[in-house]
């Protein structure tokens, strides 16, 4: 039977490329996008592998002829979980290929299936680690006994302890080989603070934007698909959050959040909950466009239930602009964190805190300079990437 149907000429059409592949192809042509992606990766790796770059726990330690790898005992569970997420994300293409080879039946796309598998692995391992493992926490142990070891591989910059460590001997020192970014008022190594501040920035950026993107996508697609009173109500809700300046809203929420909540998660929460209006408006506009498309009419004519129309047909086709919004959103979240640290509303090791510390003493330029440079470079690369993705999605605009 199938031989009677006209067969598409495979030589003419070529291998069908998915939307994502087309966008990626466009993106690869842009040098600014590739450079910013590389910088983003380096920054993320540096933040994640901070204990290997600077710290006091040796990577390898040989004493009395016995070799050990102390740093792996000291890495916290959160660090392992983050590294695992990174490795799993990097291995995603491999799994996609495996899944594609195995599965021929019609169903979820190989990418979705691979993501589900990896998320499953991640959740199981993370839960196991958090319940079973207890990381070592004794500091100030190895650095003093460095002479007793037959061999010790310390991190690139052997600095005592974690941020907040006070060494009154090395105060306000300009950059040197021992402290590449100099030291602060309390003898704290600035590179260490930059690395750990990068963790804060990335956490706030990704988690807060994740929260706001989820809220925005759900509300935006409901609003754009159902229109009428749903749209009217949700639009009013969005207006409330649009009209009260986001920073003001965050300030009043932070003023009333109980102090028992970890300041980092308080900031993540407020930025996520207040910052969804941009995504909402993008998603609503996309849904307004999509609901009139032919494939939606076809799907509706097939009698598909509404949830399936939305989840499988409408929302996936409207996600591309959200990616652009989210990339800009990460840059925006870093900005907000800087403002909040400056207003002294949150106390958590971050670039904003470092910048605020540094502005009291401008003559130690390396303090505010490195914090400012870290913020500037991070925000710039995310903005560059966002612009590049936008151009790649809509090449006709070529702004």
């Amino acid at each position, binding site marked *: 039977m199938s031989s009677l149907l006209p067969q598409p000429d495979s030589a003419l059409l070529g291998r069908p490329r998915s939307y994502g592949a087309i966008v990626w192809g466009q993106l690869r042509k842009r040098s600014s996008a590739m450079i910013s992606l590389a910088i983003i990766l380096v920054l993320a790796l540096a933040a994640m592998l901070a204990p290997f770059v600077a710290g006091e726990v040796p990577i390898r330690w040989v004493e009395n002829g016995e070799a050990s790898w102390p740093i792996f005992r000291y890495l916290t569970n959160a660090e392992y979980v983050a590294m695992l997420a990174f490795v799993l994300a990097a291995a995603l293409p491999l799994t996609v290929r495996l899944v594609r080879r195995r599965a021929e039946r019609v169903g979820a796309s190989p990418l979705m299936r691979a993501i589900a598998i990896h998320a499953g692995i991640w959740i199981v391992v993370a839960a196991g680690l958090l319940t079973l493992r207890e990381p070592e926490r004794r500091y100030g142990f190895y650095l003093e006994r460095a002479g007793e070891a037959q061999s010790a591989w310390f991190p690139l910059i052997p600095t005592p302890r974690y941020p907040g460590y006070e060494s009154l001997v090395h105060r306000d020192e300009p950059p040197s080989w021992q402290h590449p970014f100099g030291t602060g008022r309390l003898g704290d190594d600035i590179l260490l603070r930059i690395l750990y501040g990068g963790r804060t920035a990335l956490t706030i950026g990704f988690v807060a934007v994740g929260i706001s993107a989820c809220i925005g996508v759900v509300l935006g697609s409901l609003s754009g698909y159902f229109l009428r009173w749903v749209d009217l109500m949700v639009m*009013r809700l969005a207006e409330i959050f*649009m009209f009260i300046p986001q920073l*003001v809203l965050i300030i009043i929420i932070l003023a009333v959040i109980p102090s028992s909540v970890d300041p980092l998660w308080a900031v993540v929460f407020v930025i996520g909950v207040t910052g969804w209006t941009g995504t909402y408006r993008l998603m609503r506009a996309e849904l307004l466009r999509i609901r009139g498309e032919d494939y939606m009419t076809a799907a509706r004519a097939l009698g598909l239930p509404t949830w399936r129309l939305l989840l499988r047909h409408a929302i996936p086709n409207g996600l591309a602009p959200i990616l652009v919004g989210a990339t800009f959103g990460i840059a925006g979240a870093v900005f907000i964190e800087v403002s909040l640290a400056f207003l002294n509303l949150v106390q958590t090791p971050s670039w904003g805190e470092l910048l605020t510390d540094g502005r009291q003493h401008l003559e130690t330029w390396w303090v505010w300079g490195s914090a*400012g440079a870290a913020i500037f470079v991070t925000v710039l690369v995310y903005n560059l990437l966002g612009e590049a993705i936008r151009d790649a999605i809509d090449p006709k605009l070529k702004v």
Partner: protein
Amino acid sequence: MKTYILKRLLLMIPTIVGITLLTYLIVRLAPGDPIEAMIRNQSGNIDPKAMKEDAQKIRERLGLIDYHYVRDRFFGAPSEEERPQPTGASYKVTDALDTVASAGIGYGRWVGHLATGDFGESIKYRTSSGSRNPLALIAERIPVTATLNIIAELLIFFIAIPVGLAAARHQGKWFDRASSFVMLAFWSVPTVLAGTVLLGFLGKGGLGWSGFPIAGLHSFGYEKFSWGEYLADTLWHSVLPVVCLTYGGIAYLAKLGRASLLENLRADYVRTARAKGLPESRVVYHHALRNSLLPMITVMVLTLPGLIGGSVIVETIFSIQGTGLLLVNAAQAYDLALIMTETLLYGVLTLVFLLIGDLLYAWADPRVRYE
């Protein structure tokens, strides 16, 4: 046009209700107690138990526990163990329904007070003669913030539009590329960093050229200045703050203006205008630019909340006694009445400006009215 205005005004009502409700709920859900904060603010650290009792007395005197009275009348008095103890930890109602009901009553009461012009009492700014009305406190500081923001908006508009225009006309040439990158770089500098560097290198006592004043908007003894001196003094003081307020907006608007103009330059009517043989300058300035400026009205209004947020930071950096610094101080002192009034005011102001912007748009572009 009349129907359009009426429709817009009617749609404003739920938004205003929402803004007040959100403000109220945030403060309502706060775990801290405003009355205890007030006592702490007046008498420093005191014994927590004594403070709780004092707070309870104040509440009884102010009639703040009459919610129970209302509930008892409608649903009958609860038994002894259900009733919250007067000396209990805080004014907490265990039942979820009770919480909602009491929040509802509280909200209604608050809105009633707002309607009669009673915005509560500021606990942070008290004088010996009594507490200050938050609205009066804010009204005192509005001229400062408004002046700075109006200057900033004007500068943003008159710098960003020409830059965007030039970039769009020379699309892909060196000016376009350079301005695009510079604008993106501007957009990536946090206000705190810009303020710090400007203040540190250009301000008095700084490291570089120390000519600019570093705090406030007036020199010492400005009351005795003639108005010319006063104006020059104020302008001189506002140079750095205005720079901090504008550079981000310029970057944003220049990019949008460029995109908008490019879109219009590709439109059919521009081709028609060119085909008619009109000179290029007339095509650009008379046809394309005018049309691309239209959406800028809405964009300018929508940047307003961002500008207000920015002025919170700028006023703190430069110690300018405006509404932004007031909000920061209020948040740090847990001054709920002041926080609520100010948030409400910001929301309503933006709403009103957006309405004006929309009406202007509808007046300029009749197609909008009939949508």
